[in-house]
Structures are given as C-alpha cells and as structure tokens.
C-alpha cells in the first residue's frame, strides 16, 4: 500500500487549492467588474462602466459602485447612472449555474446624466436603437404642421406644383392632332369634288352622246347603271367615314368637357393642400400639442424597447440548441426537468430610488427575469413619491407579462398631481413655438399593450398656466391671432387616445384648445382661405388659359373635317339625284 500512496501529495494538493483560492479572492472583484462591463456593453450597444465591484462570500453578495450605462443614441449622455447596487445572491442556486438574486437595492439612480467622454461602441444594438428612434408610425405625426396660410406665395406654388389640367390639355391636344393628321390623309383617299366633277362630266357625256339616253338604249342603260353604282359606292364610303368620325368626335366631346373643368379641379386640390379647410379649423389644438404627443410616444417607444430587451430571450433554448452547432470546446448544456423549476437569471425583488428633477422617487420591481414562463409570475413595478419639490404626488405602476411568450401583455399607469411645469416647450415648430412658462399639470396615463395591439389614453389638465409664443414665430395675421389667443389662456385640457397595432396605431387628440383657437383665429383663417382661393383661381386660369385656347383652335380644325365630309356627301347625293334612267 505504501508503495502506491505518497501522503506528502495530499499536502501539495491542499497547498495548491489554497493558492488557487487566494488567487481567486484577490482577483475575483476585477473579474466580476470586467465581466459586467463587457456583458453590459454588448447587451446595451454602448459603454457600460463600473467604478468598483466587491464580491462577499458570507453571506454571498455583490456590491457595485458607480454603474454608468451610456445612452446608445446619445453617446455623450448616460441613460442611467446608479451610485450603489447591492445584491444578495442565493449561493446554492449559483452552484447550479443559476443567478438568483433574492434582494437587490439600487440607490442614487439618475437618468440622462452627462458624460465626460463618449460611450459609443459599434454594435448591432446601436443600429437597432437608432432605428427605434424614428417617429411614431402614425399618420397623425406626419400631418402636424400648420399650413402656412399667412405666407402662401401663389407664384411659387404654381411653379412647384404640377397642374393636372395642363397635362390633360397637352394629352388631348396630342390626340387631337394625331387624329386630325390621320383624317387629313383619309380625306385625300375619299371621293372629293374632283371625282364628283368627273362623274358629272361623265353624266353629261352620256346625256349628250351620239345616242343620248334615246339612242343605243341598251348601251346607255348599262353605262348609267354602272355610273350609279360607282357613285353609290363612293357615297357609302363617305357615309362610313362620317359615321366613324362622329364616333371619335363624340369621344373627344367628353374629354373636352373634362379638360375644360380641369383648371378648377386644380384650384380645389391646391386649396385643400395649402389652405386650412373648415375641418382643419376644428383641430388647431393638434398643431400646438401634436409635436409634444408624438415626441412623448417616441420616447416611450425607445424606453419600452430598452426594457423589453432586458426581458427578451432571443429564442427558446431547445430550438437554439438544435439550430446552432456549439462553439469548439464549449459543448451544449442539455436541460432536464427540475423538481423546483427556476429561471437561469432572476431578481426576486429590487428596491430602487430614482433621483429626478422633482425630487426622489422610490419603489420596487419584482420578478426581473427573461424566463417568466418558467417562474410563472410577471414583472411588476410600483414607484411613488409624495410632496416632492415640483410635484404633489407621483405614482407609477405596471407590469410586463411574458408568462405566455406568445401572448405578451404589458401595462403601465402613471398619475401625476400638481406637477409644476416651468418653461416646458409644447411646440417647437418654427411658425408657432409655444412654451408653458409656468403652470400646474395633472396627468393620468393608462396604457396596455396586448399581443402587439396598443391601447392607451392620457388625460392632462393644465391650470394656473401662462403660455408664451416666441417672438421668432412666423408673422402674419392668422399666426398672430393664434399666438395672441394662446397667451391669453390660463389653462387647457387634453385627451389623447392611442389604439391599434404597435406598428400602425391611430392617435386621437381632443382638447378645449380647439374651440378657443377656432373662435380667436377662425374668422381670420376663413378670410385668408378665401383670398388664397381667389388668387389661386386667377393664377391657375392664367396658366391654363393659353393652352386651352390652342386646344379650342385644334378642336375647330378637327370639327372642320366633319363639315368637309358632309359637303362631299351632299355633292354626291345631289349628283345621284341627277342620274335618272330613261324609263
């Protein structure tokens, strides 16, 4: 036995194990820090930095100091900065390769803080988040701008716009000239005055010939009959041509009518495009608030994408295992049924306190995991704050439900009471930049996203308000009237309803601003619209007048072909009447 055992080897093994343990304890904090930075950077698509990491074994926990996550869309800004993050881990589950955080506390969370250096990295996520910052997919956001009714330049509009009437005139003119040319050629082939004169001389000849109708009776009758047939054949061809001509002329008749009416249609179209219609007057509030609504939706979409990304599992594990061959030397982990199933990553409870402009907001998030289907519980969050610096109360709550990944359901509810609004921009449009100088806002937001369908509504009431319109606003009587009406308001209410599929939802905005602005600026807008219509009509008619006259000349030229055909027919018919048989 002694031949096979060397007991000193045991001491070497213990020594080696101790060295490894000491090495691990010395370097583990650095390893954890670098792992978090590297994983975070890959996941976010921008630099994730950590000031310090401290791993404790008894009880097993991790403390992170100074976590800064760069905003991938604005690399000189941190999307979030967390002063201190303390995690309490379940050691037994860690041995099972599961990261289960029983309790997590986040303190000193600050959003959108500036960075000293750029945190940009080139990854796919950066590209995706840039794509995500597109404006909301709704027609509403494409048609916010106020028609420039005060500064409409008729000549500029007419030089930039294609007039359909001119195109129609040109097209009809071309067709008319083509037909005219065809018929001129055809007229040459049809029996005309010369031929009928020839017939006439032949008749005269037969009459005054050696036998006349009286002599050579049989021969004369034969010639006469032959002549009659020839004249009749020519008359038939003329009648046939006239019939075809009439059909073409009738076809052109409709086109002439449409073309004559086309300039007025152009006037109507351009009026709809450039001037406010009576329906437009009913929604002036959209012009003032639309940008803010669309901007808010865009921001919400960006945040939702970020939050969703944390919770998303790219593919079901079993599918992923089958589809991609494992990396060399890495192998594949086969999963079996667990007696007490748990996700690979789970934060059971996270307590967090946000530092926002208004003060500090505290709350908790429960069940943060990409494997809600395994856990069987949705992520829920509740944050609230009372008697803050700029806010009476704020309450934010909601859930992200992926228990059944096929039918995700997310919900958010936000209530703000007496939020002190100061110098908040409502509209940044160059024509009408509106700012709430000061005011108190009560906001209530409820939104639900179920199976890709969005349904939400926001009601906001602004009171004790003072609105300002920048001096740089577009000048003109209408904008002046709108601006003046806005500055006299002391408050307003807004209701926004959003519904429909996430990639094509509908936004409905209703506000009492509509009525206030309509009564203040409506008459002015109406007068401007009428003036615009009158000038537009003059401009279009002046532009289309010349080509229309030319078209009429061409039409007359074409109609003369019909007269020629009628004359020839008359000539031929008269000639046929002269040819009388001797019996």
């Amino acid at each position, binding site marked *: 036995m002694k*031949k*096979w*055992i*060397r*007991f000193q*080897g*045991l001491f*070497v*093994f213990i020594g*080696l*194990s101790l060295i490894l343990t000491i090495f691990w304890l010395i370097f583990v904090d650095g390893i954890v820090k670098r792992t978090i930075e590297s994983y975070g950077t890959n996941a976010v698509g921008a630099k994730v930095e950590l000031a310090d990491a401290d791993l404790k074994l008894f009880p097993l926990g991790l403390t992170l100091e100074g976590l800064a996550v760069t905003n991938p869309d604005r690399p000189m800004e941190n999307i979030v900065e967390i002063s201190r993050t303390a995690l309490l881990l379940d050691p*037994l589950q860690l*041995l*099972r*390769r599961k990261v289960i955080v029983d309790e997590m506390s986040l303190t000193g969370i600050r959003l959108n803080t500036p960075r000293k250096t750029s945190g940009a990295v080139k990854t796919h996520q950066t590209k995706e988040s840039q794509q995500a910052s597109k404006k909301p997919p709704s027609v509403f956001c494409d048609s916010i701008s106020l028609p420039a009714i005060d500064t409409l330049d008729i000549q500029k509009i007419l030089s930039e716009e294609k007039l359909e009437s001119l195109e129609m005139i040109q097209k009809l003119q071309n067709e008319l000239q083509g037909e005219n040319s065809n018929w001129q050629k055809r007229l040459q082939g049809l029996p005309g005055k010369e031929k009928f004169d020839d017939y006439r001389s032949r008749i005269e000849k037969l009459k005054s010939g050696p036998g006349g109708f009286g002599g050579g009776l049989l021969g004369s009758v034969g010639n006469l009959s032959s002549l009659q047939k020839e004249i009749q054949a020519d008359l038939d061809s003329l009648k046939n041509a006239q019939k075809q001509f009439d059909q073409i002329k009738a076809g052109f008749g409709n086109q002439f009518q449409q073309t004559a009416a086309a300039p007025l249609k152009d006037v109507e179209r351009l009026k709809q495009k450039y001037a406010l219609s009576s329906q437009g007057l009913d929604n002036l509030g959209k012009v003032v608030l639309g940008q803010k609504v669309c901007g808010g939706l865009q921001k919400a979409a960006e945040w939702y994408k970020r939050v969703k990304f944390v919770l998303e599992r790219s593919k079901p594990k079993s599918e992923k295992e089958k589809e991609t061959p*494992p990396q*060399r*030397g*890495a*192998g*594949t*982990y*086969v*999963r*079996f*049924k*667990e*007696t007490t199933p748990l996700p690979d990553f789970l934060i059971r409870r996270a307590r967090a306190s946000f530092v926002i402009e208004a003060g500090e907001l505290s709350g908790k998030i429960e069940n943060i995991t990409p494997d809600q289907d395994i856990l069987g519980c949705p992520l829920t969050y509740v944050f609230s704050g009372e008697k803050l610096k700029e806010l009476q109360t704020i309450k934010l709550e909601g859930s992200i439900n992926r228990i059944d990944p096929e039918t995700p359901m997310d919900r958010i509810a936000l209530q703000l009471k007496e939020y002190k609004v100061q110098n908040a921009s409502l509209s940044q449009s160059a024509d009408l930049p509106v700012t709430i100088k000061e005011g108190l806002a009560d906001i209530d937001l409820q939104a639900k996203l179920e199976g890709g369908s969005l349904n939400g509504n926001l009601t906001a009431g602004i009171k004790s308000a003072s609105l300002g319109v920048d001096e740089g606003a577009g000048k003109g009587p209408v904008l002046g009237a709108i601006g003046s009406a806005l500055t006299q308001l002391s408050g307003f209410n807004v209701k926004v309803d959003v519904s429909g599929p996430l990639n094509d939802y509908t936004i409905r905005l209703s506000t009492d601003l509509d009525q206030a602005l309509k009564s203040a600026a409506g008459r002015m807008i109406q007068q401007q619209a009428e003036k615009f219509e009158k000038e537009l009509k003059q401009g279009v008619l002046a532009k289309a007048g010349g080509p229309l006259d030319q078209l009429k000349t061409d039409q007359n030229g074409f109609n003369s072909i019909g007269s020629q055909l009628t004359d020839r027919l008359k000539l031929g018919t008269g000639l046929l009447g002269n040819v009388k048989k001797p019996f």
Partner: protein
Amino acid sequence: MIKMIAKLFKVINSETDPGQISLAFCLAMVAGLTPLVSLHNFFILLLVLLLRVNLSAFILGLTFFTGIAYLIDPVFHWMGYGILSAGALNGLWTSFYNVTLLRLAKFNNSIVMGSLVCSVIAFVPLYMLLNLLIQRYREHILAWVQKTRIMQLLKTSKFYSVYQAVSGWGGRS
C-alpha cells in the same frame, strides 16, 4: 519539453513499476480529454498527487491528450449529446440534474459527458496495454535499441546529454 521526454525515457528505462507510468498516462488521458476546468479534474489532480504515479508521464500525457481533445471534440459532442438525450437514461439524468454537486460537475454538458465516458471506457484497456508495452519494451527493445546505429548517433546529440543529466538526478519520481 526535451527534458520532460528525456525524464520519461529515464523512467521507462529504469526499474520503476510500469503500473505507475501507465496509471499516470491514464489519469492524464481523463484530465486531458475532458475540459480542464471541471470538478472531476480536481479529483484527478488529488489522485495524481496522492498516488505514487509518475508526474513526468502525467504532464506529458496531459499535454498530448489536451491537444488531441480539441481535434476530436465534435465526436465527444455528438456522443455526449446522444447519451444525454437517450430516452432510456432520461430518468437517471433528471435525478442527477437535481443534485447540486453533479450540476456543478457539468455532467449535462455534451462535451464533458462524451469525453468523460470515452476516457473512462478507455481507462482500463489503456492501463493494461501500456503496462504490457513497457514490460515488452524493457525486455526486448531496450537492449536492442542500445545497440542500434541510431542510438549510437543519438548518444552524440544534445538530447542524450540532457538524458544523461536527468539520469544523474536519481531516485524515483
């Protein structure tokens, strides 16, 4: 490396028990073919240090088997995945999966399972084969090799001088 090989030859040529050399190779095979940072390899390390096996043979074997493990890991993956997904064994693996220590041993990894099964199966046959080869070598080949022209040439090389230097260290490994 030359020193290591020379040392190995010295051990093979000495009167060291062939079993100690063979066992070192076999343990190296298990540690080398399976992923190095695995729980069972701590146990292998303990055995290597505790049992009187030849350390030079173990280190050389470990280098050799680690090299070939990378080349044949697709075979280990295929084999391990087959074993782990075999319906008949599902109950066994499920019960293993719920034991923390075994989960830590990464038994459910296709390469760990495939390479471990291969090396365990090959352990006893390789041990016996190496024993036999060392014995035969000592009995028949060593004397013949000493007389060959190549050996005469080799004796003048750097390798032989290293070998001689190692021979002078004496004692069993």
